[in-house]
């Protein structure tokens, strides 16, 4: 079943305290070289039928209305095809 994924990220100009906390933890654990961390949210939406343009348009509406707050966040929408299990 195909899945629609909505990724929501804080806008670049908005302070991201959670990302900052993660950034601070990395060197303490011995991970070097990371200069910035931004933390966002990922929504995986499952649909019973085919993912048509109309469905994608509706997902955009969902993202604008509920999944993100356009004042502080940006979002992207993409479709993920299922990966067949390898034997």
């Amino acid at each position, binding site marked *: 079943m195909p899945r629609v994924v909505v990724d929501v990220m*804080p806008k670049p100009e908005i*302070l991201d*305290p*959670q990302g*900052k*906390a993660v950034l601070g933890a990395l060197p303490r654990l011995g991970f070097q070289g990371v200069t910035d961390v931004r933390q966002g949210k990922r929504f995986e939406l499952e649909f019973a039928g085919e993912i048509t343009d109309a469905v994608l348009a509706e997902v955009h509406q969902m993202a604008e209305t*509920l999944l993100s*707050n356009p*004042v*502080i966040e940006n979002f992207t929408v993409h479709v993920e095809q299922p990966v067949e299990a390898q034997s």
Partner: protein
Amino acid sequence: MKVGVVTFPGSLDDVDAQRAVRIGGNEAVPLWHGDHDLNGVDAVVLPGGFSYGDYLRCGAISRFSPVMTEVIDAAKRGMPVLGICNGFQILCESHLLPGALIRNDHRKFVCRDQRLRIENNRTPWTSSYAADAEITIVLKNGEGGFVADDRTLDMLEGEGRVVARYLEVNPNGSLRDIAGISNERGNVVGLMPHPEHAVEDLTGAGTQGLGFFTGLVEASFA
């Protein structure tokens, strides 16, 4: 006046808000998030807490509760609405107020007695304060950092819509020390600190929050 206080699943300060409304000389009317009408109230308080568990974003789910449809309609017609803390977050998510509240810049929950300046005493909620009155009330939040773009901040300042500003300490990283704002008309006010916890000598930070609940009695809503 009849002042409705909305209880959402996860509201914490609804009972204190009702009590503050009564001590302020008004009748408190409990409202439930699933209500489809406002039971004839003249004003509404959206209290603090963690409505719907703060899932998704603070206030994001509450904004779509049945009672909020009524509150938003009434606010647009001019009914006084006060959102405290989580209520402020709900008002921003409802787009009744501009900007948003994000996690405190220092990442810790903050709980303190906070000094404020009431910079706009022309709203129905602040009319009993003197111009530029300085008060101390309780502040407690994890996601109280007020943010908006520069254009919006300039507009709020230019139109006198910064209702309250933090003094001495900026407790949460709010831009320009903003603690509370109003909509253009002035009937909708959002405030991060908690005046309802400062209405009696017995507990809390004194009684300087009471003014938020006495102004309604005196105000005439033209």
